[in-house]
């Protein structure tokens, strides 16, 4: 009886375990780990927006960091220059980011494959050039500083990193849930249909362009959310946050974790950010080691860590995963 009920709620149970792990992080680990977790989460949102597009649309975007950065820039400008109170700068920032995604989306959804990559690269670089050169608004390479995280329920997110962690965790979980729900919905199915055969979907009467467009805007929304937390945590924003390097870092994290999966995005970001800190403390040639690691990942595990675990670990992991209802994805 108890066992049956337990089986019935096994997904809730799994969710509770995961939630428990995330919630307990500030209690059981060090301050430094919390800071790292915050970094992984906001950057994870950027990577997730990239893997969402890669997994559902089959395109690689090199401008997700632009939406990330635009939201961040608007938060910084509205807060430091116009002194808007808390909920407005992030709301406006995300809205502006969405509007820009809406405008540019009309352009980029027309192309596919390598052309999508090239077009997003150009547009992303355009945003970077604006951030770097339009110094009266963005303050050039120095960037905008003195951005402080808000005070919520009487707790300053600036002073208490634990509070910041929970604040961000709430939205991070929301964004993850949003993307998972999108994937599971008929909308997600239609997107996968388009990925597999666009002409067939068009023939069946689906509004292919509209669906692609919507997916692009949804991905931008998640990236923008990440950007808001980025600027609150860093306290400053400068053109490097919208640069090609940031885009490529997100892409590398996605490749490392598994470019088609959301869990891979977070895992890849976590590994990349951790290696950055741990390896660089050990050796000055850490970039070399990371390069070699990427070489191995691409040679032997092109689907990333999650994909490889799914392939090779099926035999011993599948009973467990099936039990949790995650067997086939």
């Amino acid at each position: 009886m108890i066992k049956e009920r337990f089986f019935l709620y096994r997904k809730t149970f799994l969710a509770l375990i995961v939630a428990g792990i995330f919630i307990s992080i500030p209690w059981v680990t060090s301050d430094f780990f919390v800071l790292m977790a915050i970094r992984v989460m906001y950057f994870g949102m950027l990577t997730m927006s990239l893997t969402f597009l890669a997994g559902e649309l089959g395109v690689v975007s090199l401008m997700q960091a632009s939406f990330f950065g635009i939201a961040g820039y608007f938060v910084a400008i509205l807060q430091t220059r116009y002194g808007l109170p808390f909920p407005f700068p992030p709301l406006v920032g995300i809205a502006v980011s969405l509007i820009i995604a809406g405008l540019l989306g009309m352009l980029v959804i027309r192309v596919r494959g390598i052309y999508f990559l090239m077009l997003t690269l150009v547009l992303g670089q355009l945003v970077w050039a604006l951030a770097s050169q339009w110094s009266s608004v963005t303050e050039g390479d120095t960037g905008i500083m003195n951005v402080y995280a808000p005070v919520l329920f009487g707790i300053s997110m600036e002073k208490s990193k634990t509070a910041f962690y929970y604040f961000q965790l709430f939205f991070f979980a929301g964004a993850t849930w949003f993307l998972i729900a999108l994937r599971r919905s008929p909308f997600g199915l239609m997107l996968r249909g388009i990925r597999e055969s666009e002409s067939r979907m068009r023939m069946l009467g689906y509004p292919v362009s509209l669906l692609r467009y919507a997916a692009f805007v949804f991905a931008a929304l998640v990236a923008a959310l990440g950007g808001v937390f980025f600027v609150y945590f860093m306290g400053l924003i400068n053109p490097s946050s919208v640069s090609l390097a940031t885009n490529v870092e997100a892409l590398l994290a996605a490749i490392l974790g598994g470019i088609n999966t959301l869990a891979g995005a977070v895992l890849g970001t976590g590994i990349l950010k951790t290696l950055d800190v741990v390896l660089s403390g050990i050796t000055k040639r850490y970039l070399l080691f990371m390069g070699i690691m990427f070489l191995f990942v691409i040679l032997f595990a092109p689907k990333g860590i999650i994909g490889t675990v799914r392939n090779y670990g099926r035999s011993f992991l599948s009973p467990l995963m099936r039990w949790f209802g995650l067997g086939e994805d």
Partner: protein
Amino acid sequence: MIIHHKPFRPVEGCWDDGVPKKEFRLTIKDEQRRKKMVGKKMIWLGVAILFSTLWVWGTAHAVSEIRIGQIGPTTGWATMFGTEGLNGVKLALAERDYKFKGIPIKLFTEDTKADVEVMRTKLDSFKNRDKVHFIIGPSLGHEGMAAVDWGARNPDMPILIGYSAPEDITMRKATPSVIRPGWTGPQVIFHFGKFCAKDLGYKKVIIVGQDYSYPWDQAAGFTRGFLENGGEKVERIWHPVDAVDFSSIMAKLTGMKKEYDAVLCNSGGAQVVAFFKQWYQFGLDKIYPQILGQANVPIVPMLTELADMALNVYSSLHYYDGNPSEANMKFRESYLKAYGIYPSVIAVQGYDAMRVAFKAMEAIGGKVDDPKAFITAVRQAKMGENESPRGPFYFDKFGNPVQNIYIKKVVKKDAKLMNIAVKTYKNVSQFGPYAAMPEKYMAQPATSREYPPGNKDDYFREIEKYFGKDYMAELKKNNGWKE
């Protein structure tokens, strides 16, 4: 016949054999459990003792080791700025054998990749992972600005800024825990403007430079010194940061000769080498007298690349490699011995930062675990004539050095190119000639690619607006700056 075996059900309040539990009785199981418990307790006790001893030992010898974090770009395009600074720090540490009064010093180094997000992660690592006592670095402009912002949020971590030159680190954004034993961009070039106007007698100058904030600052400082001392016009030409083809600019410069007297090269790195080469290819050396340089232009590593093209180039800086002082000679030789090349000003600043830290440590008896005392001691540190390769310096109340500025000229000495000082301006603060009115100086807008204006009339309108009529009258009376 079916026999129903009744399951054994112990009577409540009785032992298994039915005896009431009036008295405590040890069973074999209990005995085993007790032994296990004792074993566990012993382990816990051992752990507790170990930790408490570690903790007591840790607090008793708080500074059993001095931990220093050094940060700078050691990979990527700006490698030179990070590595040389680090070498300077290491040299100063090696001079004392990595020890301070018997206390060993441990140096942690991190790479910023010239990216501020990476840098802040590393600063957090220094603070929370390595538990360093103070930090030296970073090197680049935008890094320094991000570091001072981090410093304001972490006031218990002293930071000695490396080569970063933006004014605001020690002006509008100044914070007690951040001290810069270095320089600001305009600080070193104010007087070069004066020198060009008064000593070289130029009236109109063109500045060609990379389009980002450091060259903007250089141009701004030069413009102030030049226009306030008799110069008439400064024209700025900006090119993309990584441009190496200057043919269109060279053609433009040829045409501008009718009006302008001289050209100042306001770039850095490979762009300077490309600029100098094309300057000679287009024959501009025959049209203009000689090239002028921003603070970084004939920097030591550049001299070997530019070779004779660099001869007679004028520039200004707070350090010159031809300084005959004992401190500089010793520094140059030991650096050459350790790294195989002659040091540049970047290495000097790493070296100086570490020496200032030593001086502060001496003042507080090595108690680096008290950040407040350490910060105060650093701010009060005064480096004498023979304590730094650059000459004497001390800190102003914002944490930037007041130091000598040398007008340098490249000459050939023993078949080696070298910067010598043709003129020395003593004790120049980061506010230059405006040292008496820092508030007014800081009230001005931040420098940009077009601010302050290069046109004499527009420029003086701005000066009158921010510094007042008295200052203008004084300028007129003295025919420029006083000294």
